[in-house]
């Protein structure tokens, strides 16, 4: 019974990891690739860790596996945030089909409300265009 559960969890985790890798290879953009790679570290690694804990079964292994899982779950959002911020500030090109870029400066009249755009222009007249 425990063996069957472990096998099922491992197969599911490996499938999620493979899907995440294929997503990282096939997605068109840094940010979409990052979104795909998150699945490997949460769902895939979580299933693998729970399966390994069932297979070991003793307390010290559960503690170590839980510490790995907690560390990955805590640090993955931080790493993704730092990487995305660095990629945006380094002007990595966005996918042409991107529909919303909230950090971009408003340059076109349909991009922002008129008074907001006027205030932005009044605040910083030297910023002529998008970065």
């Amino acid at each position, binding site marked *: 019974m425990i*063996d*069957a559960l*472990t*096998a*099922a969890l*491992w*197969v599911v*985790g*490996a*499938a999620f*990891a*493979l899907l*995440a*890798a*294929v997503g*990282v*290879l096939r997605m068109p953009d*840094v940010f979409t*690739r*990052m979104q795909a*790679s998150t699945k*490997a*570290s949460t769902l*895939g*690694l979580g299933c*693998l*860790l729970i*399966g*390994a*804990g069932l*297979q*070991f079964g003793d307390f*010290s*292994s559960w503690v*170590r*596996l839980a*510490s*790995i899982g907690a*560390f*990955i779950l805590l*640090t993955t959002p*931080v*790493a993704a945030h*730092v*990487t995305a*911020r*660095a*990629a945006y*500030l*380094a*002007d*990595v090109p966005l996918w042409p089909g991107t529909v919303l870029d909230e950090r971009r400066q408003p340059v076109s009249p349909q991009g922002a409300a008129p008074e907001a755009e006027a205030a932005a222009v009044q605040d910083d007249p030297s910023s002529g265009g998008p*970065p």
Partner: protein
Amino acid sequence: MLDLAMQFTLVTLGAALLIAVARLVKGPTLPDRIVAMDLIGVLAVGMIVVLAASTGVQATLDAAIVIALVGFVGTVAYATYVERGHPE
């Protein structure tokens, strides 16, 4: 049945690792390579955990903890490098 599942898991994780290495080699920008390297670290942790559980050697789990730690620090360091390299 568990042996079969273990082999399937390891082969699938190895294929995922190769695909991530392809993105690491191909990646047009440095953040792409950072994302691929982060994914490679996570996949290595998964492979080590599966190997430790299937061989029963518990001390291997410590290596997985170390790889998780070093992967996070490396990702943050690379991101800081990218952000400083383009100060505008």
